[in-house]
């Protein structure tokens, strides 16, 4: 295939995937809007001051203020119109724009997810690779057992245990909050968020590497006298990467979602904390905005991964 043709196919693939992502996002926004609109209990009433909400006039005013007295399809169109302008609405509770709430929370979550992702991929792939190279050894057995325990333990339990042993008992690390913003406040949250992914990536890497080791081209590479390290890095590791990247990508979204738990344990201000608080307080615009951002993150990550495939494995075609 000439490079120009390939180039064109690539571009039309990217465009069609982008369009698909936009449609998916629109469907999510619509479904969420209607799901959240059937919330029992009057949102306007719950967002208001409990001392005043007995007064029907106040409730009516509040409903009018938030536009909740309009028919649902008008509200939907209004919401979508604002969304196209990049406006996520105004929080019922804080009276500030949802955009600014998210803009304040997002950097913290982004930092946490990024650090955890780096930790998980580095350690997870390394452990899995070593386990595969020493397949059947005691070290392999132990690390794979630890890996399956790591997948089976709830994140918040692991987090609380780390907090108990490292901050409460030994007083080594801070037990929560942002502190002065230094890295040591991120250590426990990042480890907590990472452990299940380290475990999962170690398992995936191990089985993928073992599978690739059996391929003919690895035997050929060894037979033609390449150094063992060259075979391991260039042939085995590179070719094992596709399932590893798939899992990493899928789980990157999982990391994002699980900040909900980790930020709650360690009292961090972020998207996770924001969405949980907003759900509890029935702050619909904030809930909707947060879930939208989570989904957008998910969709973008998946898109990136699909594009990465082609780069890593030229056998995959986009035709």
């Amino acid at each position, binding site marked *: 295939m000439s490079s120009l043709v390939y180039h064109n196919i690539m571009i039309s693939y990217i465009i069609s995937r982008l369009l698909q992502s936009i449609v998916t996002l629109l469907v999510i926004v619509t479904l*969420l809007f209607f799901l959240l609109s059937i919330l029992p209990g009057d949102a306007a009433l719950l967002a208001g001051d409990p001392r005043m909400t007995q007064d029907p006039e106040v409730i009516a005013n509040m409903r009018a203020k938030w536009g909740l007295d309009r028919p649902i399809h008008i509200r939907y169109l209004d919401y979508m119109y604002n969304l196209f302008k990049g406006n996520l609405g105004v929080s019922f509770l804080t009276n500030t724009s949802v955009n600014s709430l998210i803009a304040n929370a997002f950097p913290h979550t982004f930092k946490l997810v990024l650090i955890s992702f780096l930790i998980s991929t580095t350690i997870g792939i390394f452990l899995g690779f070593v386990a595969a190279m020493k397949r059947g050894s005691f070290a392999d057995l132990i690390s794979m057992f630890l890996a399956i325990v790591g997948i*089976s333990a709830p994140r918040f339990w692991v987090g609380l*245990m780390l907090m108990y042993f490292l901050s409460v008992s030994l007083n080594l690390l801070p037990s929560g909050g942002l502190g002065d913003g230094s890295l040591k406040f991120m250590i426990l949250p990042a480890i907590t968020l990472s452990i299940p992914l380290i475990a999962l990536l170690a398992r995936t890497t191990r089985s993928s590497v073992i599978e690739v080791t059996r391929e003919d081209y690895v035997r050929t590479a060894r037979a033609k006298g390449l150094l063992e390290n060259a075979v391991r890095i260039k042939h085995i590791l590179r070719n094992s990467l596709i399932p590893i990247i798939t899992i990493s990508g899928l789980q990157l979204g999982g990391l994002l979602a699980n900040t909900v738990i980790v930020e709650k344990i360690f009292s961090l201000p972020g998207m996770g904390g924001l969405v949980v608080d907003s759900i509890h307080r029935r702050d619909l615009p904030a809930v909707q905005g947060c879930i939208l951002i989570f989904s957008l993150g*998910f969709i973008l990550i998946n898109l990136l991964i699909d594009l990465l495939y082609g780069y890593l494995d030229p056998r995959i075609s986009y035709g």
Partner: protein
Amino acid sequence: MKFIKKNLQLVIGAVLVVLVISMAIFAPLFAPYDPIEDTNLLNSLIPPGENFILGTDIQGRDMLSRIIFGARISLLIGIVSQLINTFIGTLLGLIAGLYGGKVDSFIMNLTNVMLSIPALILALAIMAVFGSNVINIFIALGFTMWTHTCRVTRAQTLSIKEKEYVQAAVASGASKIRMVVKHILPNIISPIIVIATFGAASAILMESSLSFLGVGVQPPTPTWGQMMSVGRDYIWTAPWLIIYPGIALITIVLGLNLMGDGLRDLLDPHIK
């Protein structure tokens, strides 16, 4: 003996799962105290010791008894949510695979939408909208984790539909239902069992996370997630409130995950 040696993971997993299942069924026999009624504020937060092997909670209830009874809810959630997920996933996968065309692309798009919202966040939102009780947990976990089953079923249906012997059967007048029952279901049953086993493990984990976030099964029904959620406030003084329910939870989830691994190796020797 040979089977045990060859399928060690499956056997260990099954032992752990059977252990928790019998704990749930025979809870009243094993539990030394009543998990809900035996409150006594004089016994509040007693560390693990002679009378209370795993200590007591803030209301003076025996932790061991609460953990034993808590197995019931966890198992129920794992089983019911996977029955719902498996039913939805298989049905949609079959429909997509058999009918193709617009129906197929609609179902596949629905799957993509489901996959684009993090399951935990979706479940959290569903619990918040409909309220915290056991039925809604079933809904939140039963309607959000079917995508994997759906994809596998669809892929298998597509490939089996094209097989010559199936085409021959259809040409000689076999109905769609017959095709599904005779040819497709037998082929998808083992991957579906594996997916459901792993799914039960993640549903149990997810329930505990929802409880931890305060939207799970509400007291007084004892659940492991809720016990740990309460325990979080006493981590400085009473860590046993968190440690032991967590170990119970890990036991069942680990058992199911080991079983899933073992079953996959046993039923599908290609993947290993």
